[in-house]
Structure formats: C-alpha cells, structure tokens
C-alpha cells in the first residue's frame, strides 16, 4: 500500500484530437480522416468524469492483470459477453416491437405499401445499428462484470476489489490475501451459470406482433387497407350521414361567409371583422328575403285579401314616382325630390346620376319588392302579438322616428321630416300598437322578431339613404344678387343612392347601425 491506488490506475485521458490526414495525396484522404475522427470520438465516449459519474475503472488489457487472476478474468470475459448479448437482445426486441407496431399501422391504414415498407425497413435497420453501437459503447468492463458477479453470488465485493487491485504490481500481503480469498470464493460459485443467455421478457409480445403483421400483410395481398375500407363503409352509413350532414352544412356556410368577407372592400373588411356575428346576421338578413320569397308572396296575397295593409305598402318601390292616392305628404316629398333632381342638373351631374338612379331603381325595385313581401309575410304574426299589447295612438312617437336618424344636411332635414310625417300617417292607419314606443310593446315585438327575422331593411335603407344624394349648398350674397354655391368640403355621398339604393351603397361600418335602426322602427310600426 505504498502508493494511492487511484494514482496508479490512471483513467483514460482526453488527448488532443488531431485531425491530420494520413495520406493527403490520395483520394482516400477524407475518408481516412473521417475514420480517424470517428475512432477518436468513440474512444472518448466511455470516459466519464469522476466528479459526476463516480469512479470509473478502465477496461484494462487482460495481459496487465496478475497471473493469478487469469482464470477470474476468463470467467469475467464470458460474463461480459453474456451481459452484452442479453442487453443487445433486449434492446433489439424492444425496437422490433415498435417497428412491428409501425408495420401493423402501415398495413392497416396505408393504401400503398411500397414506400412505407421501404421507410420502415430503413428505420428498423438504422435503429438496430444505433442500438448495436450504443450497447457496444456501454459494454461492461471487467470491473463492472465483477461487481455484477459479486452482487449475483453474494461475494461481498470480493471479486471487484480483486480486479481493482489486479493490476497493482507491488502489492503487499493484505492485497495478496484479498486476491486469494476472492479466487477461493469464486471457485465455489458457478459464475457462468449465474449469467445465462436469457430471452428477453417481451419476446412473446414481439412474436405475437410478428404473427399479426404477417397476417395483415397476407391479407393486404388481395385486399385494400382494412382501416380505409372500414372508414368508407362507416361514412356511407345513414347514422354517420345524419350526424355529419348538419356539420357539413355549417362548415359550408362558414366557408361562404369567409369567402364573402375576403371579397369585400378592404376598408369594409375591418369593420365586418370587428362586428363578427352581426355581419353574418346582416347577410342572413338579406339572403333570408330571397329564401322566403315564395312564402312571403302567399302571405302578401292573404294580407291584401284581408285588407290589413295599406295600399301604398303593397305598391312596388319602383312605382313611387306615381304617388299613392290619398297621401299628400308623400306627394310633397316626391315633389321635393324632383326639385333636388333639377338642381342636380344645374351642376352638370344630373344626367349621370339619373342614369345610375334609373338602373338602381330597376335593381332596387326587385329587392324592395322582395323585402315588402317578406315584411308582409311577417306582419300577421306581429299583429297578432301586438293585439295583446294595444295602446292608444301617440302622435308624438311618429315624428321622433322620422327625425331621430336624420342626415346632417338641410335638404335631408326637410326630407326626413316629410318622411316622418308620411310615416306617421301611414302608420296611424295601420294598428294602434305604434306610438311613443312603450317598453312593454317593444319587448313583445323583440320576441317576435327572434322567431321572424326582419327582412324589411332594403326599402328602408333606400328611403334613408336618399337624403345623401346632393351637395350642400350655401347662399352667397354678392353685389349682383344672391347665388347658391356648392360647398367643396362636402363630398357627394349619394350619387348612386337614390330611392331604392342597394345595401352596398351604405358604408359597411354603418350597416349594422342602419339595420338596428329599422329594427327599432319596425318594432314601433307593426
């Protein structure tokens, strides 16, 4: 014990990694350099830091051990081989289980097996090679094998201590005694019998998977992938179709809405996106009128026969040039509109706006007609509901509905007022439930609207938007007289907005507002 054992049993040291190419002149030089590098890299892997991994006794060459220990070294070598083989078998079996699971999944789901099989085969080979390399790198040293032998044979660390001291040349009496003691104990033990070659524990599972995979691939020779067939059969079944149909319908609707949003103007997209569901409700509102056209038509006829609705509401919007009989205020309104058109002519834009107005009237006429039909189709239910909440007519409520949403221009003020009056007269003839808008009546109407969406927006929009069509004018007094000049600060908003304008002419950010306004107005009128 003259010298510390750790000092003599030096660990493998990290040498400088030299990447010099052995034969630079030949074409094999890069490969040789790579081989040298890989060898050095592999030789460095087993070296562990004592601080982190504990003591590591290097796998010393058998020739360096004491001659007395040769027999023990031979026994340990056999044990090492068996440990290595068992570890390798276990690793490969585990890996093969995963590969087989992959193969089974492939056979179940993949319609074309060729590419998948090739991929799995390459993966399996790579994994097996990696396991082989890893196992070899972590193969037990003689010292590790001795420790395992000590543990298996209850030798109380005799052989591991003997192996550790086996390379000590100048050993004293105690080491010799220890070595003798260890050898005598090992001789009494069937060391190789303690480390048999064992089949891995999961071998049965792997064999079952092999059989399953073989059966599946035999099936696949003449058949399609079972999982695909099963899915197709299931998809055709009525039960699945009944479950999937509403979902598919919803998805299609969402897709349409998304497409509509994408095709909208860039400035409108932001507004529509912000509003979210309300936008969808808007579009449903417009589309709903088309969908319910037939039903609305029938309802309109019924209503006309019953005489519940006034004649002016039954009239098409395109015929508004001809004022309905007995409505003086409406005539006034139209005459003012004519005056406005004349003033447009004086600005040089009247022809263009008239042409656009004519086109719009044609297209808007159809949509307004449709909207009227829809409104009439809703009216019987609303009237039925309103009868329960009848209130005395209130004259103050009607002008409020006309004036509260007026555009800011002077001309518009006039028109809005006149329109409000006309509305008042019309509504006064209809039902007694309109007026100041009692809370009770409104609540009932909202309930009713939930069941029957309001479809009367287009015609209302046209009426409301007509106030924007002209420029604001100012009276300017000069020496020669007074003249009306157009204000440059005011932009023309109503070029295309004449009676019966389409909803597209309303800025997107105002559509929801306008719709809500008319919903409110409907609550008051019906």
């Amino acid at each position, binding site marked *: 014990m003259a010298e510390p054992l750790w000092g003599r049993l030096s660990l493998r040291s990290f040498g400088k990694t030299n990447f010099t190419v052995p034969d630079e002149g030949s074409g094999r030089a890069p490969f040789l350099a790579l081989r040298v590098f890989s060898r050095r890299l592999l030789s460095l892997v087993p070296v562990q830091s004592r601080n982190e991994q504990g*003591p590591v006794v290097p796998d010393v060459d058998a020739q360096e051990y004491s001659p007395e220990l040769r027999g023990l070294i031979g026994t340990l070598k056999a044990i090492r081989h068996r440990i290595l083989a068992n570890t390798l078998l276990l690793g490969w079996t585990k890996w093969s289980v995963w590969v087989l699971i992959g193969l089974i999944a492939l056979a179940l789901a993949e319609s074309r097996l060729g590419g998948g099989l090739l991929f799995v085969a390459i993966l399996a080979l790579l994994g097996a090679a990696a396991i082989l390399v890893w196992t070899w790198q972590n193969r037990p040293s003689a010292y590790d094998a001795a*420790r395992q032998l000590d543990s298996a044979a209850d030798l109380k660390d005799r052989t591991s*201590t003997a192996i550790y001291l086996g390379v000590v040349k100048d050993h004293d009496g105690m080491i010799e005694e*220890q070595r003798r003691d260890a050898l005598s104990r090992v001789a009494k033990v069937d060391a190789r019998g303690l480390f048999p070659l064992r089949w891995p524990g999961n071998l049965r599972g792997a064999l079952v998977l092999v059989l399953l995979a073989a059966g599946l691939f035999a099936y696949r020779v003449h058949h399609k992938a079972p999982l695909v067939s099963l899915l197709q059969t299931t998809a055709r079944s009525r039960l699945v179709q009944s479950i999937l149909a509403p979902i598919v319908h919803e998805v299609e609707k969402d897709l349409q809405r998304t497409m509509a949003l994408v095709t909208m103007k860039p400035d409108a997209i932001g507004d529509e996106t912000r509003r979210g569901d309300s936008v969808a409700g808007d579009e449903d509102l417009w589309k709903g009128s088309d969908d319910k056209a037939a039903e609305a038509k029938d309802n309109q006829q019924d209503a006309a026969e019953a005489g519940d609705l006034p004649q002016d509401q039954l009239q098409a919007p395109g015929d508004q040039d001809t004022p309905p009989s007995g409505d003086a205020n409406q005539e006034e309104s139209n005459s003012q509109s004519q005056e406005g058109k004349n003033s447009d002519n004086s600005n040089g834009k009247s022809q263009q706006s008239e042409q656009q107005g004519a086109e719009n009237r044609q297209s808007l006429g159809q949509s307004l007609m449709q909207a009227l039909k829809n409104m009439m189709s809703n009216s019987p239910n609303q009237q039925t509901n309103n009868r329960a909440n009848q209130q005395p007519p209130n004259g103050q409520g009607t002008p409020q509905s006309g004036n509260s949403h007026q555009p800011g221009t002077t001309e518009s003020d006039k028109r809005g007022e006149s329109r409000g009056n006309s509305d008042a007269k019309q509504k006064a003839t209809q039902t007694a439930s309109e007026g100041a808008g009692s809370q009770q009546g409104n609540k009932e109407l909202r309930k009713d609207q939930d069941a029957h969406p309001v479809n009367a927006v287009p015609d209302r929009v046209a009426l409301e938007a007509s106030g924007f069509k002209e420029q604001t004018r100012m009276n300017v007094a000069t020496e020669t007289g007074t003249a009306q000049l157009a204000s440059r600060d005011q932009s023309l908003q109503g070029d295309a907005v004449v009676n019966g304008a389409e909803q597209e002419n309303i800025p997107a950010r105002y559509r929801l507002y306008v719709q809500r306004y008319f919903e409110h107005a409907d609550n008051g009128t019906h």
Partner: protein
Amino acid sequence: MTSSVGTEGQMGSQPLGQQAESLAEKMGEVRREISKLIVGQTEVVDGVLIALLAGGHVLLEGAPGLGKTMLVRTLAQAVAQKYSRIQFTPDLMPADVIGTSVVQENGDGRKSLGFQPGPIFTNLLLADEINRATPKTQSALLEAMQEKQVTVAHTSHLLEEPFFVMATQNPLEMEGTYPLPEAQLDRFLFKLRVPYPGREDLHDILDRTTQGSAATVRPVVNGPQILEMRRIVRTVPVAPHVQEYVVKLTLATHPESRENLLASKYIRYGSSPRGAQTLILGGKVRALLDGRYNVSLEDIRALLLSSLRHRIILNFEAQADGRTADDLLEEIAGKISPN
C-alpha cells in the same frame, strides 16, 4: 490469566494475512468474554469493539439499568487495560476530569507546583452520564478525545495509548441533562443505542445476576496488540465503488445537496468528513472481523446509522414531523444506489 494475552511483538512478526486472521480470532475471544456478563446487545458489543480497533470513541445512549457501565467495565477487563470511571454531575469541574496543578513538597522540604493527573489519564475511560455535566466540563474532554493529550497551565500532557472513551448518556428528553455540543458529538466515532433486552435475554439476565456468583472475565488482548490491530485495519483495501458509495451517502446528508430533497427539507447540518472516515474505517474493521480482506457495501450499510446519526442535526420541520435521524438516514440510503 495473562498467559492468554500475546506478547507485544507476537502479531507484528507474522505475515499480514495471518495477523489479520489472528486479529479476527482475538476479537472473537473478546466477544465471548464480554458475553459472559453482557446478555444480548450483540450490535452494541460489536460497535464498541469496532470503535476500539478503529481508534475512535463511543457514545452509548440508553435508559438507566441497561448494562452500559457493565459493558465498559467488562471490556476493560477483557483487553487488560487501565480503566477509570467518571460520574458526571452538574457540579463536576473540568479540573476534576483532566487534573490540576497542586503544591507539592519534595524530599528536601521544597514546595513546588506539580501536575496531579485526573482520571482521564487511563486507557479506557467511562464517562458515565456525560450529559448531566455542564457544557464547560463536557468540553474538557474535547482535546483529550481528539488530540489524545490534555493541556494544564500551558503544559500539554500526552495520554497513554490506547485511549478509548466510552461515554454514556440518558435520552435527552430526561430532566436535568445538558445536550452535548455538536463539536463534541463529532468526536465520537459511533453513537450506539442500547436497546431494552428481549424476553429471552431478560430471563438470561435474571438467571445470571440473581443466582450464585458472577462470572469472571479473563483478559484476551493487551494494549500493544490493540495498537497493532489498529495498524492492520488500515491496510484493508477499499474498492472505488465502495468509497464512492460512502461519498454519496455523506454528501446526501448535506442540506445543500441538490440530488436529495430530503436532506434540504429536514436536515440543518449534514455530516462532516469525519462521518465518511468513520464509515470507511469502521468498514475495514468489520470486514476483518468478518474474515474478509476488503470492505464491502454491506459493511457500509451496517455502520451507517451508528456512524452518522449523531453527526446530522435536524431542523425544526423534522422535529415537527416527528422524523428522527435514523429514519432519515435509512431513507437517504434507500435512495442512493451504490452502482
């Protein structure tokens, strides 16, 4: 009686292997002699013998009447060494332990101060009920236990080898006791718990002590042989994985240990390096007594509690949770793999 005790150079002339075998035989004889008077308590007896050969001291803890004092006295007889006993009491002063300078008159009538050695100048010292003395008196043992010398009036006096202190103490929860300071606790190689005897042992104790005359103990080994045994013990090799296991165990008792959350939760101060030394040295003695020439992991595990239980100081949380040093150490050892 002394004929059975070997001569001073007898063991040293033999080969080391034979000396080791002789050591094991001698210790077996000592065990048998002790068992004449001490019934059962095999672990305590083994612990005391291991500590004697490892060159350490032992703290015996147990209730009164369990044979602690009897064990020390019997051992002193078996190893044929001088034996002193100090009964520690609250009014015991350090000078009563280590000695003091007194005025002495020589032959021609001159008077001078001379050192009067205390009872500590012996080979086997029994410090009975050490925790009943004040800390000041307890600390008087510190230098003697570690340095094997005492200093009085700037003069150091060496103690005779082998010097072996066996202190006994009652459990700390008993009234009128002063817990030993940590520094002094660390000086003890082992802290051995003396358990109550079992049914058969109790019958045996009653038979031996209440009938006829008490058995006599013959000396088996002497002082020089014990010192030679101590030298042999240190030649026993330790495999690196065994030493690594000791290091892991010691580090695992440190509250700063990142690997062991148990220590950081319940331990205020972990084991000092003396704890690791104790494990290795004790393992060596145990291996020799077991007829082996190498330390095994089993030796380390067997000595873990007696070596470390007094070196770790538990925190308040451990006391609140009712955890003891023993069960914490066992749990720590269970979590540490020797591989």
